[in-house]
């Protein structure tokens, strides 16, 4: 077990070693890649200075709000589209026209509509998260076996009850997979939208430090975003496995 863990960690250890040695020896310009130790020190200073925490909290609030809204609206839209042909007919042209658009292209529009503050960021993240959630909910709900629906109706469930007590849980595996995609997209849009405008957030911190030429701190901020994204995905996977434990 220890040996396997070591093998798994080996590439990371080697990478960190190279990251330290190459800039220090001058093979790579330290301006372009500050050595790992310098980045670590810069990270520590950002942490005690409070920059990482205040900007991190601000970013997390934006991600949670945008993603949360996207999940609620997306699941409702997807499941209702699958269940009611009229909703499908009304909503699906809208979804189809939104589908091929790169969501980052909407960020300037959201800034125009919702201003320079948190509103435009939340709206951008919401727009990006919406579609994967709608699609997975729709497909999941459409894939619900007819015999499950009939069984519930035969036991006395009304159509609306069947929707939330049978179709929704049957669609849950697909919905949760779609939400995982949305989670990844939400971090992309968070950083993109914070790059463009605003005075707060980790994306803002990266662009601020980069513009100021403080590259070791900029790297520290970039790595922080990557780490938060990674940890969020891991935590989500644990939650997903627990929720779907009935699948064995």
């Amino acid at each position, binding site marked *: 077990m220890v040996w396997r863990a070591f093998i798994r960690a080996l590439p990371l250890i080697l990478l960190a070693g190279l990251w330290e040695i190459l800039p220090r020896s001058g093979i790579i310009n330290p301006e372009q890649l500050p050595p790992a130790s310098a980045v670590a020190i810069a990270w520590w200073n950002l942490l005690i200075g409070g920059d990482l925490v205040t900007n991190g909290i601000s970013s997390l609030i934006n991600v949670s709000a945008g993603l949360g809204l996207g999940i609620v609206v997306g699941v409702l839209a997807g499941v209702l589209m699958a269940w009611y042909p009229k909703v499908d007919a009304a909503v699906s042209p809208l979804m189809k026209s939104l589908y091929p658009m790169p969501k980052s292209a909407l960020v300037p529009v959201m800034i125009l509509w919702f201003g320079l503050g948190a509103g435009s960021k939340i709206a951008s993240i919401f727009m990006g998260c919406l579609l994967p959630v709608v699609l997975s909910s729709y497909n999941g709900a459409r894939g619900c*076996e007819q015999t*499950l629906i009939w069984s519930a109706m*035969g036991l*006395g*469930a009304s159509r609306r*009850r069947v929707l939330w007590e049978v179709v929704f849980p049957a669609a849950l595996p697909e919905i949760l997979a779609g939400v995982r995609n949305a989670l990844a997209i939400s971090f992309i849009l968070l950083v993109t939208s914070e790059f463009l405008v605003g005075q707060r957030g980790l994306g803002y911190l990266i662009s601020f430090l980069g513009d100021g030429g403080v590259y070791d701190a900029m790297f520290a901020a970039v790595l922080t975003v990557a780490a938060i994204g990674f940890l969020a995905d891991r935590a989500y996977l644990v939650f997903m496995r627990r929720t779907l434990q*009935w*699948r064995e």
Partner: protein
Amino acid sequence: MTGAIQFSSVSHTYRPARGKPVLALDGVSLEVKDREFVALLGPSGCGKSTLLYLLGGFIPVEGGSITVDGKPVAGPGPDRGIVFQNFALFPWKTVRQNILYGLQKQRVPKPERERRTKELIELVHLEGFEDSYPAQLSGGMKQRVAIARTLAVEPGILLMDEPFGALDAQTRALMHEELLAIMRRSPKTTVFVTHDVREAVYLADRVAVMSARPGRIKEIVDTKFPGGATPEELLQTREFADKVDHLWKLVRDEAIRAQAGH
């Protein structure tokens, strides 16, 4: 609770999303008496499952009429419980929760609900598996849960759509015994769809043989044997073999016609 069923000149046209409409059932008339066990036997595609879904109220009756105790069928209801070949258990619910579902829908008070669920779990021999999920059970166990879930709301009529078709031969034979034991305890009007001739003869009081598409009732054969014989004895009798033989010939002709029709 009673459950006399009357199919009168039932016709049904299947309309695929693409392609031509197909006449699936053509003027099917059949009477099932209260607490009688009738098997619908026929080649695949003869519309026997469609007939069952119409009786269940899952698809609307277009031509003719279906009545239960004189009242026309209008939608699904707990007076007609159904068991499907693919079990159709709620995979996110445990055995206990699956059985409880119908009782909750019927607003059975909680102590009564718990008591009945416990009884049913004993009836289908699933003690110790109350908190298992369907994915953890064998095919035979899954179908026993499905039967218990259906029996929980005490339907007067039991609809079975090739319920043992997905099980291996040994499990199927055991399930036949269990089903007959359940029927002895609380007899129900049963309509049982199958393409297995021996199964139909063994379980049913009468077997209705259906023709290849469009489905019609070709012949109704009495398959009730005098009681007292054990299953092993019954399966060895001349009478049983003759019934199977007779029905097999009828079904074989229709199966050949169904093949030719495709």
